[in-house]
């Protein structure tokens, strides 16, 4: 009698373990539309209303327990935030002193402190044409030309009120009387000197990657650069009269989407997505003004002039 009970117990145990292993193996090897997954979805569908009801019914209990946890956590956070506040107050005081000293020193040295876009007039133009194949040539045609003061080399930024309408989109590479051609930053021939707004402000050269123009590559970066995903990339610009940049400094260009330390060490590059939605632009702003006076010279240097 006892032996029979033992054998039965062991047999049931073995059966349960085997069934579990079969379920595990079958489920793990199945696709999402397989019978076991379908059964699981059915059970979840049946259980969902019950869980919803139970969740509502048990909410006061959850809230009660949550209140204890929240109180303890809030006290901890309060202490941490107080420490942060004190640190930030010290930093703000330091920054204010540094800003005052900076302004005084700039005044003493007579440094031009005008930044980027303030030097430029902005002319809004409508996009009236696009290149057919953006893998080989990525250009736009605008309805503003030399008659509107547009010159070769003028920077062009996105226009509009949407979240993805700002940011650098390219430069004027050809000007007609009433139209202009914009070579986008995603064009294979385009290269923009940029600065990554990480802790060190590393400089690099941004180009489009082969086969995927919207995946921009910032190259020639330091191998040990501490760049992280999400860092903003802006135009580097140059205020030197001997080596003037095509773009004014500090125009937002993109956001780092991938910063792999191995890739950074081997190829000195990170991946960037443009801020402006280059595939859905209806308007663009051409930055005209004093800085584009030498646009023809720049076009000769960069070889940017040409037809669409």
């Amino acid at each position, binding site marked *: 009698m006892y032996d029979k009970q033992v054998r*039965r*117990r062991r047999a*049931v*145990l073995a059966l*349960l*373990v085997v*069934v*579990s*292993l*079969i*379920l*595990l*193996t*079958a*489920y*793990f090897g199945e696709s999402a539309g397989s019978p*076991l997954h379908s*059964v*699981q979805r059915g*059970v*979840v569908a049946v*259980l969902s209303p*019950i*869980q919803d009801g*139970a*969740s509502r019914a*048990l909410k006061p*209990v*959850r809230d009660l*327990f*949550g209140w204890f*946890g929240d109180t303890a956590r809030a006290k901890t956070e309060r202490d941490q935030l107080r420490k942060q506040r004190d640190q930030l107050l010290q930093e703000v005081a330091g920054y204010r002193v540094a800003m005052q000293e900076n302004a005084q020193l700039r005044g003493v040295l007579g440094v031009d402190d005008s930044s980027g876009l303030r030097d430029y007039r902005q002319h809004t133009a409508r996009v009236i044409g696009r290149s057919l194949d953006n893998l080989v040539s990525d250009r736009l045609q605008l309805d503003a030309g030399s008659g509107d003061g547009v010159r070769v080399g003028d920077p062009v930024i996105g226009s509009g009120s949407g979240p993805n309408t700002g940011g650098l989109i390219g430069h004027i590479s050809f000007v007609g009387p009433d139209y202009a051609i914009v070579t986008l930053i995603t064009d294979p021939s385009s290269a923009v000197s940029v600065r990554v707004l990480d802790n060190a402000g590393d400089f690099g050269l941004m180009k489009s990657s082969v086969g995927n123009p919207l995946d921009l590559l910032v190259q020639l970066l330091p191998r040990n650069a501490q760049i992280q995903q999400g860092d903003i990339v802006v135009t580097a610009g140059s205020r030197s009269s001997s080596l003037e940049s095509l773009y004014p400094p500090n125009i937002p260009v993109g956001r780092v989407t991938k910063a792999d330390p191995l890739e950074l060490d081997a190829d000195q590059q990170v991946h960037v997505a443009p801020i402006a939605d280059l595939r859905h632009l209806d308007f663009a702003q051409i930055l005209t003004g004093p800085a584009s006076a030498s646009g023809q010279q720049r076009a000769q240097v960069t070889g940017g002039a040409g037809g669409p």
Partner: protein
Amino acid sequence: MNRGDGYQLPLRLAALGFLTVVVQIAAISQVTVFGVSADISPLVVASVGLLAGSLPGAVFGFAVGLFVDLALVQTLGVSSLLLIAIGYGAGRLRELRDPAHGLVPLVVGAAATGLATVGFALMQFLLGVRAPVSWLLLREVVVTILIGSLLALPVYALVRRIVRGSLPQDPRRRRRRAYTTGGLSPLQRPSAGR
């Protein structure tokens, strides 16, 4: 014993298992203490094993584990395997030792929680889920075991209250009945030689 008594225990265990999983998912999992949430399913399974024996413990563990995996859209069989071991182990402890100390459920609950936590992490790791092995993970395991230990006694008392009337062989109940229905304890019983 009438005919309906044979179904009492399975019915009660089925209701207990269903309620355990629903309450666990709808309420207990959503409350975190020191960054972790309690898991009462191994405690309930261990309690059933301690009260009803190894076979009901293993079957109950299998059923609750399968239900948990189904409801949480997890890989089927993972929780079942762990809870079978917990239910069977607790039941074998009862059958072999029949421990009467009041703190036994606490120790068994802590062991069950530890086995469930570590075992689940280990099985996920074996199934290819990337999980960083760190001090943070170790801390979470320790805190989970502590919380499980705290809940073990109340959960055991609740489970005992639910299944008490349907247990076929409860040694303590048998002993109590002997003393309270006129029987003498071994200390009071006169020796045969006198």
